[in-house]
């Protein structure tokens, strides 16, 4: 063994070696997570972009984004394999009567696009966001600013926390029993909004409570000392500063919940619907119609119809579009937060 040449001479000790191994393990765990995440993500992007993008101008598959789903027809015509959507095939048969006799294979939902699903999901997200934010922020204000911290309030908090642990399918059933059956709203946007909103409420309330608590006491006292009422203080001198935090967490929570299939399965989603949501006779019908939705559509095309290469296109295309929409919502919430933050910095 070499004698130490100076005071801080490096030594190989058991503790050092142990540390190396432990950190190597942590590093491996991190890379593994990264690898899995990237795997899922790249798989969807790779397969989905084949549906969503095209090689020739305009490079985006407009039909996929703007049309309703149709059945796909496959047949041989004059020695060539042809693929046609429902409407196109009917026009083709009208032009070539002989085509009616050709043997065809058909695949449901494998042609056309997913426009109604995009619309439905956006509507579901927006509506549940409005409901969850108004209910959640109000409840948080009450809990933080008005309620005395008694046993009842502690019970309410506990109940809210427990709500966060309820599986989404249970929320779906609750929404079904409550809104669809009991309130008689049927399978409708309204029922879906409330079911999703209730599901995301714990997130919104907790985020709002945290954000409200983070606003320094001095702002409240300063305002009250100027003769503001409690509500004026909250509205003008607390809520604006808490809003960035509330919005970011809530919108992210809602975006996540809007991706759930279970809660809308019984409450809001239709397998297929010909009319777009705004094609209603009376404006009030708008709230009482079911809609198609991206997550439910993925579920339907992945498990409810025979699988083949044609349905795979729709599955991955839909998943890809869905990811993009969720990413857009998240980006929007972060931009919004940054704007608000710049206005009210402390």
């Amino acid at each position: 063994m070499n004698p130490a040449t100076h005071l801080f001479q490096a030594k190989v000790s058991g503790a050092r070696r142990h540390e190396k191994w432990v950190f190597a393990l942590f590093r491996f765990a991190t890379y593994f997570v990264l690898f899995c995440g990237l795997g899922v993500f790249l798989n969807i992007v790779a397969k989905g972009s084949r549906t969503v993008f095209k090689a020739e101008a305009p490079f985006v598959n407009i039909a996929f984004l703007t049309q309703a789903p149709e059945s796909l027809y496959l047949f041989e015509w004059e020695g060539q394999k042809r693929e046609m959507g429902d409407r196109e095939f009917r026009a083709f048969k009208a032009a070539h009567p002989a085509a009616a006799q050709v043997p065809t294979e058909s695949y449901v939902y494998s042609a056309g696009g997913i426009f109604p699903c995009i619309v439905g999901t956006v509507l579901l997200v927006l509506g549940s966001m409005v409901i969850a934010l108004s209910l959640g922020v109000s409840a948080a204000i009450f809990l933080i600013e008005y309620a005395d911290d008694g046993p009842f309030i502690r019970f309410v908090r506990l109940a809210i926390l427990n709500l966060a642990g309820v599986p989404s399918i249970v929320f779906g059933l609750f929404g079904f029993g409550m809104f669809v059956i009991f309130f008689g709203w049927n399978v409708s946007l309204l029922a879906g909004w409330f079911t999703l909103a209730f599901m995301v409420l714990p997130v919104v309330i907790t985020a709002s409570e945290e954000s409200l608590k983070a606003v320094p006491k001095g702002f409240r006292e300063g305002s009250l000392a100027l003769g503001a009422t409690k509500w004026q203080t909250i509205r003008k001198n607390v809520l604006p500063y808490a809003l960035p935090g509330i919005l970011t967490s809530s919108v992210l929570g809602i975006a996540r919940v809007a991706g759930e299939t279970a809660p809308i399965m019984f409450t809001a989603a239709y397998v297929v619907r010909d009319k777009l949501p705004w094609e209603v006779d009376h404006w009030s019908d708008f709230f009482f119609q079911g809609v198609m939705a991206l997550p439910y559509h993925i579920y339907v095309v992945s498990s409810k119809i025979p699988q083949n290469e044609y349905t795979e296109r729709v599955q991955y295309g839909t998943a890809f579009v869905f990811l993009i929409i969720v990413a857009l919502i998240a980006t929007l919430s972060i931009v919004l937060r940054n704007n608000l933050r710049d206005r009210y910095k402390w």
Partner: protein
Amino acid sequence: MTTRPPSAFARSSALSANSPASRLSPAVTPEVLVAIDHVDFFYGATQALNDICLQVEAKRVTAFIGPSGCGKSTLLRCLNRMNDLIEGTRLSRGTIKIHGVDIYQRDVDVIELRKRVGMVFQKSNPFPKSIYENITYGLLLHGRHEKKHLDEIVERSLRGAALWDEVKDRLHTSGLGLSGGQQQRLCIARAIAVEPEVILMDEPCSALDPVATAKVEELIQDLRSRYTIIIVTHNMQQAARCSDRTAFFYLGKLVEYADTRDIFTNPTNPQTEAYVSGRFG
């Protein structure tokens, strides 16, 4: 003989100077604005104020001094009922009258009270809004919206707080961009914008450097002709420099209350003497 109707803070029906509440109180001399009479105050079970009697005179600077935890802030916050915000507090005995009106009686509107009795906090708390919005905050609450009027008051208040020249070119930038001393003067400007009669200051200079402190003290001298100022301070020199009257508190009791000159040169109570000469506290 009050300068304003005694119903100043009454929520609904006017409360006459001869109401039972004020008849029971000792005679109010004309210059007394705040009359604190045998006040006991509790935080839950702990008593913070014990039998405080003290009369604050109008348009004078009154200093509260005493060692930490002796109840100076508590008494100050009783005067605009900021203690109401803390759960479990109560003024269990005695009365506090402003203009002869008991501010703890049932029909007092605390909003009205706080408009009349402004407050500057130990930790300066400008709102994260522009300087202009900080000043107009209180005015907008009380329903004054005309732009020209607001501009005028912003200038007047900032001049009043000796801050105008330093910030007149950056009125629409955040109040948080100011230095510590400027922030505290902004808070003073914000308080005087709503034209209170009394300004309560709780150790307004404790977080400031000597130069900023000097400026705030100078400002207090300017303000004394128009406002009744009550200032809590840890700093004996500050009390000696700025105030007309000084109250010395110890362990929740008022030990001595006299002209500042007398407190510092000729205290009657040995505890006061020990404290002002720096032997404890």
